[in-house]
């Protein structure tokens, strides 16, 4: 239909063609308008303005002074903590990202294999941590450094450790603890979207598959389920990228801030440090800009890889 109309107006200039198409779909723009209005005002404008602030020196009192690339020079050449933060962010993202992505897909799929009522129960159980979210106080109790700490008391009783371990202040353990809590919380949005996606799959497809000779559930997963879940798999991937690269809150709430030897310091905590504690807004914006670029690259690479496998 689209193609036919185009040839009808072939002698029109591109501009007039565009105008006509826009007029024809006017009601569609009206439908999308309220969302985009709010989006531009509260997300678009703030993001677009904070990008150039990264090239200034801005203390939130005086008007920003343009300093060119100096914030970025400082970041990469003089700020040792930032280099630690980059390293931690990458380690953290490389471990938690793929693992929780695979985990949230596997769990969503396994739950779908269960009969009706169990599906609901398990979905609830696995999403509950994301809902409970910031029960950091409880995790602090579990990892607490004294003998009242739950983990310590278990390990002491079993005789696995000699004395109480300082899980949250010993630089050797901090990142591990943060990763565990992140994994616990990370199923979240991706998991729920995949569950919803699995529920939308046409059941008659399974029957057709059985007739075509799909023997067991793994074949069914690979030949039928995964290909029909493209959009949800992409959604889950994007969610995992953002949550693993922007992690920082967990480390900040769980351990002291800043953590011992900056062991739980990520790019996000670094930005928080400059943006909300030291009020060096220009520098904080520069940090966020770098993080955004890193995520953009990772996102594009993963999308390319995924579109090779799925047709999204």
């Amino acid at each position, binding site marked *: 239909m689209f193609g036919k109309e185009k040839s009808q107006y072939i002698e029109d200039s591109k501009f007039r063609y565009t105008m006509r198409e826009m007029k024809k779909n006017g009601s569609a723009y009206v439908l999308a308008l309220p969302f985009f209005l709010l989006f531009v005002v509260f997300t678009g404008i703030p993001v677009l303005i904070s990008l150039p602030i990264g090239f200034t020196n801005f203390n939130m009192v005086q008007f920003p002074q343009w300093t060119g690339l100096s914030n970025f020079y400082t970041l990469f050449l003089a700020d040792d903590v930032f280099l630690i933060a980059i390293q931690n962010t990458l380690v953290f993202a490389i471990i938690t990202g793929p693992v929780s992505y695979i985990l949230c897909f596997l769990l969503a799929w396994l739950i779908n*294999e269960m009969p009706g009522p169990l599906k609901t129960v398990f979905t609830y159980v696995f999403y509950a941590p994301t809902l409970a979210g910031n029960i950091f*106080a409880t995790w602090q109790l579990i990892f607490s450094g004294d003998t009242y700490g739950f983990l310590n*008391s278990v390990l002491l009783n079993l005789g696995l450790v000699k004395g109480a371990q300082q899980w949250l202040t010993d630089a050797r353990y901090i990142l591990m603890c943060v990763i565990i809590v992140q994994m616990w919380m990370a199923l979240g949005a991706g998991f729920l979207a995949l569950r*919803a996606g699995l529920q939308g799959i046409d059941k008659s497809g399974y029957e057709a598959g059985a007739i075509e000779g799909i023997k067991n559930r793994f074949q069914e997963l690979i030949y039928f389920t995964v290909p029909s879940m493209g959009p949800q798999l992409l959604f889950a991937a994007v969610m995992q990228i953002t949550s693993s690269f922007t992690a920082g809150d967990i480390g900040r709430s769980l351990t002291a801030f800043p953590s011992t030897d900056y062991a739980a310091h990520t790019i996000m905590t670094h930005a928080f440090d400059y943006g909300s504690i030291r009020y060096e807004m220009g520098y904080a914006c520069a940090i966020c800009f770098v993080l955004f670029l890193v995520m953009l690259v990772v996102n594009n690479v993963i999308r390319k890889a995924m579109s090779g496998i799925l047709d999204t």
Partner: protein
Amino acid sequence: MRIIKKRKKWGGSRGGDIAIFLLLIFVGLFMLFPIYFSFVQSIKPVEELFVFPPKLYVQNPTSLNFEDMLKVAGALDVPFSRYVFNSVLISVVVTVVQLLLSSSAAYVLAKVRAPGIRAMNKIIEIALLFTSSVTYIVQYIVMAVLGMIDTYFALTLPYIATAMGLFLMRQFMGQIPESMIEAAKLDGASHMRICWQVVMPNVKPAWLTLMIFAFQGAWQITGYLFVYSEQLKPIPIVMQQIAASGIARTGVSSATVVVLMLPPMILFLILQSNVVETMAHSGLKD
């Protein structure tokens, strides 16, 4: 034919089902443990809170922690019910409006081909990656210009149009067969009608999921930079204050944790059972 019938209820082999079941139980226990532990801590009397080794059960359950919490809450300048009202108002408004606006926009982005739509899609996809902790200063300026500081608008409007909600709906709507929409168009349905009467009933799991995300997000809104009148503040801020006030009382802070996590959990329970029920017998075909 018998195999197919069996396939519908239980997947694959019986042994595989049991293995999966045990695996899920095992992972499930790890997931539930911290939540259970929070709950147990909140009903422990003081003597039991500081026992070594920490116990996983309560000998004399008490509601004292919750009573203490309410006592502190009752001593505030503004009645506690006002905070509850604020939080419920904010959560309901944000959830409903977000559902309406994201769904409409997602329909346009997924199913309408017109100039500019591709660009809008690109913008949303990029915006997904920009989770920034530094935009609050510009957000404050924008709200000040609009005269929204210290109003309910500051607590609701900024949280409605999220790239994530739109992206979620768009991904699901993209799966609706084109033929379905063409048929509705031939019947003379407007975009609005197609979106709400043709597309939306077919993506019910998606919008129930969006409602969960939206409510969960809205329930955590504190608005602490944008609102300073005590009458406008939502529950999470008060809970933070209460938890911070009783330093020696780990029990009270555990009680606030439980109170805060209950409403989203209850809503999720209601919506989730709905998802499973409705989708058991639906199917889309191209």
